């Protein structure tokens, strides 16, 4: 058991089956699918609230998704902790300034990588809210419910992603 937990990587199929089962547990115990991007919207609203006062909560979008700590917010917090535990158990926790593949193609300069990550993050944040979900909410949890919105969105995530990746590399 311990050796299994300290393995650097598991079979992607085992990991996928695990995530599928976790989704079943989420539906059963919480009446919710696993989804991540709403938590960012809530955090953004909370930060705006700190800076601009409680009036921020009156924005129509924050009426739909209140800027407060909810189930999905705890889920994303848990994901940071869970990934830390996994990485620490297998000796894979280390501070990485620039990912190797980026360093090889564009140089080992943190500023360049972080700037592109920041711009990519802005576009990703807008896109996730525009489509109403991300790779987990639409890509896994929505497609498994056979939702039309999710199959369309998930296909477009990869179409947009593959074209952009091929253009920049």
């Amino acid at each position, binding site marked *: 058991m311990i050796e299994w937990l300290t393995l650097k990587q598991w079979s992607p199929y085992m990991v996928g089956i695990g995530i*599928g089962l976790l989704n079943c547990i989420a539906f059963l115990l919480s009446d919710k699918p696993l989804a*991540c991007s709403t938590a960012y919207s809530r955090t953004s609203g909370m*930060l705006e609230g700190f800076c601009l006062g409680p009036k921020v909560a009156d924005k129509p979008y924050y009426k739909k998704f209140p800027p407060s700590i909810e189930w999905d917010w705890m889920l994303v917090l848990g994901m940071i902790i869970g990934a830390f535990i996994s990485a620490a158990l297998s000796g894979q926790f280390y501070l990485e300034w620039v990912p190797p593949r980026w360093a090889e193609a564009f140089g080992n300069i943190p500023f360049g990588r972080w700037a592109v990550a920041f711009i990519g993050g802005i576009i990703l944040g807008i896109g996730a809210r525009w489509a109403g979900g991300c790779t987990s909410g639409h890509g896994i949890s929505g497609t498994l419910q056979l939702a039309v919105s999710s199959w369309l969105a998930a296909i477009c995530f990869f179409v947009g992603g593959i074209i952009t990746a091929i253009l920049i590399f």
Partner: protein
Amino acid sequence: MFRSLHARKRTQLAIGLLLGIGFGFLLQKGGVTRYDVIIGQLLLVDFTVVKVMLSAVVTGMVGVHFLRSVGLATLHPKPGSLGSSVIGGLIFGVGFALLGYCPGTIAGAVGQGSLDGLFGGMAGILLGAGLFAEVYPKLDRSILRKADFGELTFPQLLKVNPWIIVLPVAVGIVLLLLLIEKSGL
């Protein structure tokens, strides 16, 4: 049996945290919290992301529809429209490739110490989500409603029992995974 549990706010926050720990643990063990693996998928040279996603979809699809059939789960399909799902999906894709993480895997990347995720990506996603909230009323009156189809599922669209779709989709995904494995990707 679980209805009263769903209404208990504090317990739900704890369950959310525990499920998140499991989810983050699995994503990191799958290697999909690494930039190199995600970009490898988008460049079509490393199929780890697709293998994880499709095996999660098959397992979850059969499991959740089973729970629904025995009355233990309710589906929550997200609403959509061509204006929201297609255009939003393509915008997401551009950000996905530039950032090299998605909103879920970036949480895992931060947990394993990837600083580009923490200082670049997370800050960007928060700003992007905030910008969207700012322009949402305008978008909602126009493009987000273009060709709106609501909370539609394929079984509803085709007016059939869900299992008539679940089973062939499950078989199709398994065959696709076998094909990916056979071609050595």
